[in-house]
């Protein structure tokens, strides 16, 4: 009798020992797959961008077809790891807010001024729905232009930031 499929077999990770990641002359990501084929430019995609940013990285070719999945970037060779991490950091820009200076709103639009890990920033939100509260006090914010910001755990911010934030969530 035929056995039901084993779903474990459906996911084949790229062998980290056989995978080579480098940059080509145009600065684009180049991947040599375990089967020896070479692809460039390759686009790395986080499949769990919010919960597992460094695991389950999908590599796409120029036609957005998946070349393979990397289980965990820490399994890669040190040099390859650095290149991939650097590229991912470029592809996903979502500064972490460390302090909120100012929030004011009128007609449902709010203007924010905050410090992030990469400098201070001001932005506008079009409605409260642009703020998503996740478990553990984690907060994701999407501004009017489509930029994104996050707060790891808003309970750990300073009291003033918390007070300002709590009027919005």
């Amino acid at each position, binding site marked *: 009798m035929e056995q039901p499929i084993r779903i474990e077999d459906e996911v084949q990770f790229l062998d980290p020992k056989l995978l080579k990641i480098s940059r080509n002359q145009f600065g684009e990501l180049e991947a040599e797959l375990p089967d020896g084929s070479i692809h460039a430019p390759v686009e790395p995609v986080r499949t769990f961008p919010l919960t597992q940013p460094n695991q389950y990285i999908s590599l796409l070719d120029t036609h957005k077809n998946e070349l393979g999945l990397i289980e965990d970037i820490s399994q890669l060779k040190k040099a390859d790891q650095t290149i991939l991490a650097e590229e991912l950091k470029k592809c996903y820009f979502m500064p972490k807010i460390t302090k909120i200076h100012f929030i004011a709103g009128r007609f449902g639009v709010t203007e924010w001024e905050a410090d992030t890990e990469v400098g201070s920033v001001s932005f506008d939100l079009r409605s409260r729905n642009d703020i998503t509260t996740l478990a553990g006090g984690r907060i994701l914010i999407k501004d*009017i232009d489509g930029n994104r910001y996050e707060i790891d755990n808003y309970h750990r911010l300073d009291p003033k930031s918390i007070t300002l934030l709590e009027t919005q969530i």
Partner: protein
Amino acid sequence: MHGGGFSRRDIHRMARSAGRRSNARRPDVEMTILEEVPAELQEQLEDLLDREEDIKIAISTDLQFDGTYGKDWVLATEKRLLAFNQNGAPGPEIQNIALETIDQIEIRELHGNNFMKVRTSDSAFEIARYSKRFVPKFAEATPEIELLIDKVKPEETDKSKRHRKYVDPGKNKIRCETCGRPIPRWSDVCPNCVEKGKLLFRLIKYVVPFLKVFVPALLIMGVIRLVGVYPPILGQQLIDNVLIPATIAIDGGQSVDPGAFGQLVTIVLMMLGVHVFTAVFSAVRGYMMTWVGQRITLTLRNDAYRHMSVLSLDFYQQRETGNLMSRITQDVGRLRDFIAEGLQDIIGDSMALVFMCIIMFAYSWQLALWVLLPIPLIVLFSFYFGHKMHKVFHVLWRRYAGISTILASTIPGIRVVKAFTREKYEVDRFQEQTHQVFEGEMNAAKLWTLYQPIMTFLTYIGTVLIWLIGGRQILNGELTLGEITLFMTYMTQFLQPVRTLAQMNRRFLRAATSAERVFEILDTPPSVASHKDAIDFPNMRGQVEFRDVFFSYDGEKNAINGISFTAKQGEMIGLVGHSGAGKSTLINLVTRFYDPNEGEILIDGYDSRDIELKSLRGQIGVVLQEPFLFEGSVADNIGYGKPGASRQEIVAAAKAANAHDFIVKFPDGYDTTVGERGVRVSGGERQRISIARAILKNPRILILDEATSSVDTETESRIQEALGRLIQGRTVFAIAHRLSTLKHSNRLVVLKEGEIDEIGTHEELIAKGGTYANLCDKQTELSKIRAW
């Protein structure tokens, strides 16, 4: 944001120090691609540039390459592209790229930020990193830089890799053009820039026809308010002139003035009279104002809907249905409330306050001042409390919405819940949510239970002050007992108008925003309209010729990119292509839901724009993929396109459409109600009703848009048969993914990215072995599987 202007940050600071937001905020993203270059860059530029080399483009970024916020620069001259990248270093790293070496400029659109990249034949450089806020600016600059490159090497331009000219997104703006502030999601006009005065003035125009009722109502209100302040004065006179003298007389052992009882009765009757008068005239006024309000609603609502029906499809495309609906229902209602009640409340309450103040000051200005003392406190408290309450209720409202969400997903999804045995999980989730509602309710209760006592206390301060100050004045003989009673009464009467006026600003603003939204409908001109010399064209033959037609919905991407072909009278043209290839757009142009941007569509040799719209559409029939049935009977729906159609015609059309047989099986036959609240009619049945509708209209040109895609094979053959009858002798444009639907077609037009890829008969295209032949092969394979 440079030069003399304020930066956003400056304004934040100013606003905070001033305690409120500045109204003079400027757009924080200036859409110029020639920004003012700071002095320190200017100096370096002198070394870098040749003499007589001009800066054509100068744009700044808001991100640096290391992923920190900061300002880098990209500059272009007619010779080179320069990038200044600070990256935290004291002096910028400069990339100097000669234009003739540049192959291509790329924009990498990533999550939360973009890169601008320059590619040469053997290398590539990233020259700018910017956040999504600067997307429009860079999108505008890119084709301009490409133009500069083209000038340097005109011979080797690969236009396919060039970026399109940046087009303003038009109506779906996220920021206001005038003030630069974001436009809230619930609105599509900027509430800051609404010209309140002008709008309200325009509203008054709607009041004018009803002035003969409006003005008397206003006068009656003035009288009511004036008379309304009189009873306390009567009370004062009763106490001071009748009761007190009597008490004194009794205390002194003397007999009471025999006329006193008469005076008492007179005053009491007067009090009663005032109340009866006020009550009667309030009722009359209320009725009059409701009439005025409802008349205005009627006019405004009908005007708006009439104008909306004239407006072209693009107006509807750019707005959400709910948004438009709320303009006709809610906004119009809000305007009525404002005109009929708000406006008069404001006038009436101000009058009442003024009258009361005059009287109090006339009696004792010192005491009047004391009475007014707690008023600002009460106003402030109402404001503060209203604000707090709003927040608490908002949270509560969201939590209730959470309950609804859970219910709305688990009740219809109950089969999934049970099949995966997740009942407990769902119950837990629900309990958590209800618990949050409980906490929210208790938070609200905390506030509410505080509100009443505090408000009473604040009011009581006034009362106590009157007793204290007024009492002392009585002791000094400056005030009478009657007068102190009068002050007491006014104190209580004061509160209501004060609270109303405190909310005046909000009411004004809401009304002005609503007015703007309603007037926007009335002010939009239809983009497709018959011009005044348009010809009536009752006997169309139905030849349709496309001549170099170009069309774009957004001005960015051409949906139709130069199409020319002629559909002869009575010919059936099958339109084939992937979704987005332009099939539906082509049809939208035939029906003149849109007009081409370039080129023309000729019907029997006449430009379709010269034909009266009504006359044109009167001879075009449509059968859509998801046919829309209106609320009404089956017969009404079949006869929709031909008002006054006889029963015989309706039944004949239904028979021709293979719809008669299932219609007679309905208990109510042709009188069965369909549509939103009617009986459920299956997709195939709806389709046949809509075919009957098209047959009855007897159009010269017929459009079939995926008419058979959502039905099973059995039904499809019935529909096919009906369609076979419908298309006879008409010019037909048919869209279908299932190529079998197109088997009657005389010719097939294969579209690809808005252009004609192939055109010819089925046999010709199969013989050619191109796109169509390919598509046919794939579908034959599929239909083998589908055969059962």
